[in-house]
């Protein structure tokens, strides 16, 4: 594996949640390189190599994007829509990882082409387990479309 290849892009505005997710991934040795962005605009910059990420090579795509829905600036659903409507980024698996159990969020996400929708459990053990499983599935088991 390339050490600087980003395996997971974590879009999360809540620093605690981000840290806990990172903790869970590290604990189970799933991902070595997780890039964390704090809002929707940053996420789009990263994905489309603009702004602060203008220097990034667009070919280096993450194996999976973990996307929160409630984000500052540009919200998660908009980020999802942009990713899935661009031919370069649409094959990248996007997993929504959110606190929202709202049916309309779930329905809307699937309509936009999300690959998975996971509600963050309040219980930490369950949360760690959820992150472990999805990391294992999307980063290790799942065959990504583009190498």
């Amino acid at each position: 594996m390339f050490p600087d290849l980003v395996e997971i892009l974590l879009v999360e505005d809540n620093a605690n949640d981000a840290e806990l997710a990172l903790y869970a991934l590290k604990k189970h040795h799933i991902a070595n390189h997780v890039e964390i962005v704090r809002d929707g605009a940053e996420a789009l910059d990263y994905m489309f190599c603009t702004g602060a990420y203008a220097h990034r090579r667009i070919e280096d795509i993450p194996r999976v994007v973990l996307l929160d829905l409630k984000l500052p600036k540009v919200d998660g659903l908009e980020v999802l829509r942009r990713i899935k409507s661009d031919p370069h980024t649409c094959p990248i698996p996007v997993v929504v990882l959110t606190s929202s159990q709202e049916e309309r969020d779930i329905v809307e996400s699937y309509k936009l082409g999300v690959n998975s929708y996971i509600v963050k459990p309040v219980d930490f053990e369950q949360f760690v387990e959820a992150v472990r499983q999805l990391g294992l599935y999307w980063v290790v088991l799942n065959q990504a479309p583009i190498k």
Partner: protein
Amino acid sequence: MFQGVTADIPLSIFAAVGFALTALYVAIARRHKPTWTAGAVMLLACAELTLARALQSINPDLATRVFWYKMIYAGFTIPPTAFLYLALRYSGLGSVLTLRTKLLFSVFPVLTNAVIFTNEIHGWMWNPARTAFIVNSPDFLPVTDAGTWYWLFIAYSYFVMCLGCFFLVRLLVRSRKIYGWQASTVLVAAIPAMLGPILDIFNVSPLPPFVSTALGLAIGSISVSFLLSFLRRRDILTVSRDAITQSISDGIVVVDGDDRIADLNPAAERLMGMRAAQAIGKPLAQLSPELQSISTHQNGEVTLHHANEPRTLDLRVSAVHDWLGHVVSRVIVLRDVTDWKQAEEEIRHLNEELEQRVVDRTAQLEAANKELEAFSYSVSHDLRAPLRAIDGFSRILLEDYMPQLPPEAGRYLRIIFENTLQMGRLIDGLLAFSRLGRKPLYKQQMDTADLVRQVFDSLSSEQAGRQVEISLGELPPCQGDPVLLRQVWINLLSNALKFTRGQETAKIEIGCLTPEEGPPVYFVKDNGVGFDMQYVGKLFGVFQRLHSAEEFDGTGVGLAIVQRIIRRHGGRVWAEAKVGAGATFYFTI
């Protein structure tokens, strides 16, 4: 000679009696009419002259015969004047009959009587030399024997009767146009009175002499008087219709076959802004093209602008056909619907305003609903995140740094995440509860018994290792939302299982009461800890709990959810319990 006149004696007597009786009838039955005296007098005169005729015939003595013969003529002097009186009174000209005019009218009859009874001196009535022949002849006075006064008398009598007829006809023609045809009827009825005497005068009557005169006068006057009163009554209808046409507020325009205005009532004059005198005879198209264009087709509406403000008129057109089916006239009824239209417009306006208000209110409600949704969304999202952090980091502490922590610290950390979990459950319960209010109902026929069995099976973990006795009564099917009603049964049955935990054998009874009136009442009865009925009011409130968390876990949302679902179905839920003796929950759908 003598025998010749006896033939008509019975007839004359019969006629005299008839006239007298009719006079009596007229005097009695028509006494309240102004015409009765004239009528009765006329009939009495007829009776007198026919009786005189009979007496003249049966008396052999010449002098007596002459006297009765003269009495016949005396009788003749009365009916014409009486007829004139009758006509005057009938046509409302009774006031003309003052003492003076009465005297004036009686001058000629009195003079005639004087001439009759002094005929031997001057012979003005008939040739006195022929008196014996005349009174012995069954015939009427021969024309050749008649004197000057006789002709004068006849001329005067006819003049007076014609004058009477003139007044009657004038009355009819003047009062209403529609009486026109009746005037001719009256004239026809007066013919016998005119004709009878003529027949006698010229001796061409098929009846015995004098009788046709008397009969003619009597029949004529009686039929005229009856006909008049009958026609008057009958014409109340026509006249009242005429009055309606004149007074009704709807305009009525009658046009002839050439679309020329034939009649116009006052309302139509007002609505069309023209006088009948100017309009009648003119083409409708010229006076009101708008009306013309619509009225030729059918009913409709037209707006006229003749006055300051436009008036909207509702048109009803009826065609009048002749016996061949051709349209000879059309009657156009105009109704002014301007005010009605305005009221209608006002109602429409009010309705629109009302609708707008409903739209506004709906928008407000929708906004309130959106706010609520936003609230529950942020509850689900924002309140969970800190909880997760509290739980997560205290867990990390516990797992990764336990060895470095004093034992008390570990216990405190456990308390922290136990409470975190409880708060998570509370948030979930609250969200589930609020979501229920927004979720639409999908009602369908449901097999309640089957549903209850399924729910019990799903709660098997609650029953594991316990003695649970379940008695399932008859459960009729119901109409409801399957997902929501399943939740009701889950909550009630899991409550029953939860609160019987302390019993050696949990007894749970599920059944249905079917009252005579109203919907079936489902119930879940247990032998658990029950509760104090004092607090039954709090039972269905959100987060209301009647037991401590140590005794029984739970969030206090379950029964609130049950109540909300039942209420949304239009049903009712209530409970009965006793501390330590179990509880029963009832509900209807």
